[in-house]
């Protein structure tokens, strides 16, 4: 009897449920990769991972084992104090505690059980979407390797959406939420003239902006979301499908305007949050960003302006007359530079070029219209 007890103690998951490593979460996603016009469908098309909160609760653990993990995780988070913040403006312990709560929320089948974690020695079993030993691994990676929280849970809450993200895909930022409001303001003022026609989201990543705009444009909208990274394209397609927008959003894998020849001169709107961080700043970024998010999505060249300038140069021929554009930038310096650049364009392609600040009061967006 004693032998089997100690054996049972070593397994965090109930002996009945199988160990997590046998089951690939990707098997759950039976959907084929987006059937829309990706001109070259590779046989090695990446399959997007299922976010934690969508995984089936196949695992279980006793409340007391879960509590043990939770205490360990809290202690680990607590030991950080302000070391990350001091070294690279990373998160402090209070932010980590908040992330830990969200991790628990996404892991439990029934998050309303969270208060019961306070009770010791509770042998009641709870169902989890992830094995308890994997939970140890995840949190260890968070603290020791500074892996971004969003990659742990496989999702990011953004505007009124929950978007799947994974390593290799850029995590949508709260500042970018305003982009959707900029578009919606334009549509309201414009009396729906721009509601018809194509909108394009360049460098869509997880598809955040495209999906946000799709919900504003309504069922008659058409959006093309472009990304160079095939993994991002796959994740964006997954997210679009989750919101039932696969008929409105077309994902194209390619570089900037490269795959958009067919809509040249016809676009109602071009929006983008392109990489805009100056190359030299990348090494000084907080580890979650600099060491884990794709450099392709961050590095904007020497001044951070490489892609923004490319967009400014290409947008004039892409937009129809009266078409709208909005780009997110690194801040005041880039905004002022771009406004100047666009207003002094020799062909006078643009009018009403404006700078819009984000909610922290930093000049963040450059917008305008095609003459």
């Amino acid at each position: 009897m004693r032998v089997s007890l100690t054996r049972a103690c070593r397994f965090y998951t109930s002996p009945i449920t199988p160990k997590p490593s046998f089951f690939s979460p990707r098997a759950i996603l039976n959907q084929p990769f987006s059937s829309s016009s990706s001109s070259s469908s590779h046989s090695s098309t990446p399959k997007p991972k299922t976010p934690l909160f969508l995984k089936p609760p196949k695992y279980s653990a006793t409340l007391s084992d879960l509590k043990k993990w939770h205490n360990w995780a809290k202690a680990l988070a607590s030991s950080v104090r302000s070391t990350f913040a001091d070294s690279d403006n990373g998160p402090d312990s209070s932010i980590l505690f908040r992330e830990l709560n969200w991790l628990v929320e996404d892991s439990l089948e029934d998050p309303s059980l969270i208060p019961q974690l306070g009770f010791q020695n509770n042998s009641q079993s709870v169902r989890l979407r992830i094995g308890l030993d994997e939970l140890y691994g995840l949190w260890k990676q968070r603290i020791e390797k500074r892996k971004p929280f969003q990659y742990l849970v496989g999702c990011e809450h953004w505007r009124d959406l929950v978007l799947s993200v994974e390593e290799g895909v850029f995590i949508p930022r709260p500042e970018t939420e305003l982009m959707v409001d900029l578009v919606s303001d334009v549509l309201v003022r414009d009396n729906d003239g721009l509601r018809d026609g194509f909108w394009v989201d360049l460098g869509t990543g997880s598809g955040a902006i495209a999906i946000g705009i799709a919900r504003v444009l309504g069922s008659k909208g058409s959006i093309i979301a472009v990304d160079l990274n095939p993994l991002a394209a796959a994740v964006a397609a997954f997210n679009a499908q989750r919101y039932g927008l696969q008929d409105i959003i077309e994902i194209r894998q390619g570089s900037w305007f490269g795959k958009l020849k067919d809509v040249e001169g016809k676009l109602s709107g071009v929006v983008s949050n392109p990489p805009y961080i100056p190359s030299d700043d990348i090494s000084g970024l907080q580890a979650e960003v600099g060491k884990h998010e794709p450099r392709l999505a961050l590095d904007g060249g020497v001044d951070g302006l490489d892609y923004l300038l490319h967009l400014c140069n290409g947008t004039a021929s892409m937009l129809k007359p009266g078409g709208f554009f909005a780009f997110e930038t690194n801040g005041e310096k880039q905004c002022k530079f771009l406004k100047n650049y666009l207003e002094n364009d020799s062909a006078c392609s643009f009018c009403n070029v404006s700078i819009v600040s984000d909610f922290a009061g930093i000049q963040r967006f450059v917008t305008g219209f095609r003459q």
Partner: protein
Amino acid sequence: MDTYKSSGPGGQHINKRESAVRIKHVPTGVIAQAAEDRSQHKNRVSALSRLRTLLALNVRSSVKLDAYSPPPQLLQILPPKSTIRSSEVGPQIGPNNPKFALGMQALLDLIFAVEGSVSEAAKLLGLSTGALSRLIRSDDSLRIAVNELRTSKRACSVELCWRHKLQGIVDDWRIKLLFPLLWLIDPLLKQRPIADAIFEDVKQRGTLRNILLSIYANKKSVDETLVEVLTFSTYVNDMRMIRSNFIHEKDTII
């Protein structure tokens, strides 16, 4: 209006999930915040709606009473039976509608102008006192704000009425005897048929009037209107309020 967030370059540089939002209405200095949601956008929406409510509750404008004409935002929150409400105003909007705060603000301005008299305000709005009381009770923050406007007055406020009613019920010897039993059978009491059976008696206006008369010094204020207002009730809420009153505050006589 500006939003507070930590300083720094922001944007692509940062991944710190600081989704909490705090908004300040610069002209009045009123601040509202929200941090419950994982999305900054959702917290912004919550904070804005809280700010709107706070402004409605705290910022008063004066109202001209002679030839008073309620503004459209106030008309919108009135029930259709109001005699001054025309059909052009549209359907009645409730507390969940973002525009409710504006109507609430105008209503509070009016009640303030009539020195807290719900009946006077009701007349000006083409409603019975009971109907206006019901409207006031439909939103907790409105109810509390009206009560605060009236606490200095001798008339009976909606909030005070509730407390009197409960105190009266609690002081009733039958309830005092029953209470230990109630504590044990509380889950049963939440069942409507059982609850109704026990409180049938109290619900009757005669019994209620007697209870009120036994606790009011000023018997004249125990009139039909008061009784009418108090017989509107939802049982479960009453039970909760009775329990909390009895346990926490044994001396809530106003």
